[in-house]
């Protein structure tokens, strides 16, 4: 907390913003809004890591957003997300900006990790099966080394 420059480096961490866009946007408008959000993030010094185009999806429940004193109910929305590296203090400002956007129904800012967090297809059976097999192989490799000694011991016993 003594050196400002040091703080700027150490405070930088990975954030993710998930957002829902109003379904009233047409398909052509979505890429523009998506570009604006990315621009907004980089204007606050955000370093892009990953993102996904907003895509139409049904919502699990109805959401209400008041725009210009009108209550709008939505049961579907465009869901998209961006992952970026940003200074901790600036995220608060980013939040305030996103709050004002009438095209965003809701958004969620989260701390996350740089790695891709969406799990690939499941390999449960494969990974579980492989472990015992390798263990067996090691045992097989270990036995031949002792073979000569064992033979000698057997010979000695016979003799």
């Amino acid at each position, binding site marked *: 907390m003594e050196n400002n420059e040091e703080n700027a480096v150490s405070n930088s961490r990975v954030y993710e913003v*998930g957002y*829902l866009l109003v379904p009233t946007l047409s398909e052509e408008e979505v890429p523009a809004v998506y570009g604006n959000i990315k621009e907004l993030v980089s204007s606050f010094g955000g370093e892009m890591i990953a993102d996904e185009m907003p895509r139409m*999806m049904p*919502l*699990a*429940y109805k*959401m209400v957003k008041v725009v210009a004193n009108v209550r709008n109910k939505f049961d579907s*929305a465009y*869901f998209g*997300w961006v992952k970026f590296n940003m200074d901790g203090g600036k995220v608060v400002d980013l939040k305030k900006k996103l709050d004002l956007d009438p095209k965003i129904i*809701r958004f*969620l800012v*989260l701390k*996350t*990790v740089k*790695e891709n*967090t*969406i*799990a690939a297809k*499941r*390999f*449960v059976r494969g*990974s*579980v099966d492989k472990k015992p097999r390798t263990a067996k192989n090691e045992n097989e490799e270990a036995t031949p080394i002792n073979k000569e000694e064992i033979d000698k011991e057997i010979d000695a016993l016979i003799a």
Partner: protein
Amino acid sequence: MKQDYFSANNIKYIDYKDVEILKKFLNPNGKIMNHKKTGVTSKNQRALASAIKHARFLGLLPFVIK
């Protein structure tokens, strides 16, 4: 589910966007299942609960299934 699903599948970070995985841990009413039922470690159960709650906030998962 006796074993921890997340360590078995090598999932280090439980993502709220991974709805297909999170759905496995909801009961028919949409409630989060008990750790005794899920078999998930305490640490992962806590992460799982917050991931489900984040997904609910963004409408990816329901709060209740009627």
